[in-house]
């Protein structure tokens, strides 16, 4: 006789009831699967459309590379062959796709630098600025929102609200210019522009990314502060907060362990939606701070129809945006479900 041992989960499954943790796991997995199902056709279609648009643009990379001195028809034909541009469009695209699937994004027509090398060098620039901006936004916005809420109606609250309203309308590049004038030109505290990686020294790296990150964090800080203030004011009016006060719990404990925990949801949602925009904002700030990021690479590649670079960037950026959105949505979903379950 075979003895079948049912574990707790199996028993629950057998009874048709899935435990919450496993259910959440399944939901997360299905979301990841869904995300991938969206990612693959988007990347495929967008890369094909980009290729076609490049072909329709009338530009001739070989002629541009050879320039005023050397772009004779024979030299252009030779370089076309070397670059693989002598094939029909569909063959060119297929060749690129096959190489890309095998992890080879090719080389820039103009610089001869491998596309993967260019992207891996530049992506950390934008990412580090965006991540540092998120940290600064949480610190600045979180502090300002909390102070405004606990000083509700006072001059500090009104002052913070007014500053936030103004700050949220300021484009990051304007803030960037102001910061350069103040901190680089006037008091020489930070470099005006340029970038060095963390390998050159953490302090040196931080001095180069702090101003762009600060510029990028201003609008997000204002958003977080306003959201947090509104929700915290509501939470602080709740009966359980009043009860906690009546019971004599220390105010700091009430604020941190009870009020803030329940008031951060909307601010987190804002942050979740702001992060991909921050990445795009980092691209815009590259111009102001002369940062060697993806944005400059993309602009140059698009201007010269450097197709391998444009395609490589498209692949990486679209993948990144979809994955980040997926992670944020899954995390927020998990947070809310956790909250609901605790609430029930």
């Amino acid at each position, binding site marked *: 006789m075979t003895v079948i041992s049912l574990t707790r989960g199996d028993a629950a499954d057998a009874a048709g009831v899935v435990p919450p943790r496993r259910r959440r796991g399944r939901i997360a997995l299905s979301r990841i699967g869904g995300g991938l199902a969206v990612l693959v056709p988007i990347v495929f279609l967008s890369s094909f459309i980009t290729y076609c648009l490049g072909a329709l643009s009338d530009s001739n990379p070989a002629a541009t590379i*050879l320039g005023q001195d050397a772009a004779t028809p024979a030299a252009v034909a030779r370089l076309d062959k070397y670059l693989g541009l002598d094939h029909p469009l569909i063959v060119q695209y297929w060749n690129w796709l096959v190489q890309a699937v095998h992890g080879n994004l090719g080389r820039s027509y103009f610089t001869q630098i491998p596309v993967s090398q260019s992207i891996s060098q530049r992506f950390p620039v934008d990412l580090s600025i965006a991540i540092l901006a998120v940290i600064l936004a949480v610190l600045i916005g979180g502090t300002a929102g909390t102070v405004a809420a606990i000083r509700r109606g006072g001059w500090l609250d009104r002052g913070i609200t007014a500053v936030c309203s103004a700050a949220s309308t300021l484009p990051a590049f304007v803030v960037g210019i102001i910061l*350069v004038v103040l901190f680089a030109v*006037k008091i020489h505290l930070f470099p005006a522009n340029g970038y060095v990686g963390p390998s050159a020294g953490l302090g040196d790296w931080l001095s180069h990314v702090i101003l762009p990150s600060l510029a990028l964090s201003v609008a997000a800080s204002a958003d977080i502060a306003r959201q947090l203030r509104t929700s915290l004011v509501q939470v602080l009016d709740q009966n359980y907060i009043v009860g906690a006060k009546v019971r004599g719990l220390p105010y700091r404990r009430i604020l941190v362990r009870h009020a803030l925990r329940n008031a951060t949801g909307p601010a987190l949602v804002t942050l979740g939606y702001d992060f991909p925009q921050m990445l795009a904002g980092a691209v815009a700030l590259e111009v102001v701070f002369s940062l060697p990021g993806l944005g400059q690479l993309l602009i140059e590649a698009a201007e010269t129809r450097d197709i391998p670079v444009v395609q490589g960037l498209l692949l990486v950026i679209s993948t990144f945006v979809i994955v980040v959105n997926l992670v944020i949505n899954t995390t927020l979903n998990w947070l809310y479900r956790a909250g609901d379950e605790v609430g029930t």
Partner: protein
Amino acid sequence: MRLRSRAARNSVLITAALALSLAAAACGSSSPTASSAALANSGASGTLNWEWELPTSWDPVTSSAGWDMHVLGLVYASITTLDPAGNPGPGLATSWKYAPGGKSVTFTLRPGLKFTDGTPLNAQAVKENIQRGQTQQNSTIASELSVISKVVVNSPTSFTFDLSQVDYQLPYLLAGKDGMMVSPKAFAAKAGVNSLPTQPVGAGPFRLTSYVPDSHANLVRNPGYWDASQIHIANFTVQDITQPEQILAALESGQVNVAYIAGNQVAAAKAAGFKIAVIPSEVVNELDIQTTTAPFTNPKVVEAINYAINRQAIVQVQASGYGTVAYQPFPQGFVGYSSQLANLYPYNPAKAKQLLAQAGYPNGVKITLTNDDTADTSLAEQIQGQLAQVGITASIKDIPEDTSTQFLYLDKTIPFAIDGTAGRASPVEMLDVLYSQQGLMNVDGKTSTTTAAVSQALSQILTVPLDSAGYPSALQNTVATAVQDDPIHIWLYTNPRIFAYSPSVTGIPYDLVQQRWEGVRVAG
């Protein structure tokens, strides 16, 4: 074709904010710090931080911009070098001698030369470099080197170029990218060729130690450079700052101590305590005009346009006065500058109207002006305004920059366009590109033939030895013939290289063609 000149941008807010802050904080830049490595460099010291555009490739064979020569010259030494006035002189080669008849030339190299990777720089290395430039599939210098039919190694320090035609201009050519020597060890394998765009190995005044594309390049002095005794800078960085407005901020914050600026930034830089060097260059703006397309088929229309353009006003508006009115491709001071053309078309709108009437257009004429610099249309608009004053209605057609080579030079389908050129090491090469039948910038090309006088002059000048007494006048006559007989280019103005630099930097040379750093010192 967009020129690499520091154009004034329209970011008034940015410029104003930075100019104000610079004026207020006029206190000089902070001194760069010399590394300990610098101290070992036999008296060389300091760091020169140069704001300049980084190259499209660090490989001279695949570099796709003539402008790259300025930066490539930091890591590569050339067979010859150009003196400040643009005349060829000794470089890696101490001398050269043409065979009677001018169809071969023998060069003598300095003894004991080495690349920075230790590979000997001898005649065999030169041969391998020339062959790579001629045969590598993606070479951008193959056509220029095609005049060399054979390289003969006579000894480790002597080699002979057999030429496909008499060409006394070769020493000029070998001072530019064509003559920049790359270590053969670096391009012996395919992997080496692939790494050259980011990891150059040359024998120039400096050696590249790190490079971040679109950001900066760090270099250290190369003690093995043939003219190392004239290199007094221990460390060198090239920093590429995209926004002109940010360059002044970088100067003021001490990030760079020599910066390439636009004419409209000179006053702010001076107010902030920086020195200014206005260095004449061969960069020149012009209009291409297809004399095979109506109404430009009538020479009087072309002449009318020449008289209708107020070049001095253009220099004032486009370059804040820092430029020189031009009626020819070469600047004053260069051996090819023709004094015959010094004031060829003085601004004269009345005469322009009269010429138009004589051409059969008493009530004006409509034309299209093509502009490929869509980021800055101010020059096109200014020319449009000047032409309108004499009755020529020019509509501006903007095209993407990356299509201009195809349409303007290859298809030759653009009748009237704003263009420019950054000059060439060889003046005859420049004239050839501009005026010869096969020259890409000869926009008439396909449907007409270059006049016999111009063709003959261009062929003839190749046969004149550079050291002959008659060379300057022969070259100047060729320029005058080409400009007057074949008016397919309306020359506008030359753009100087304007540097704003810290008082701690001294000795910046005024090189017409390629910026060099011999004799420059950085204090502190």
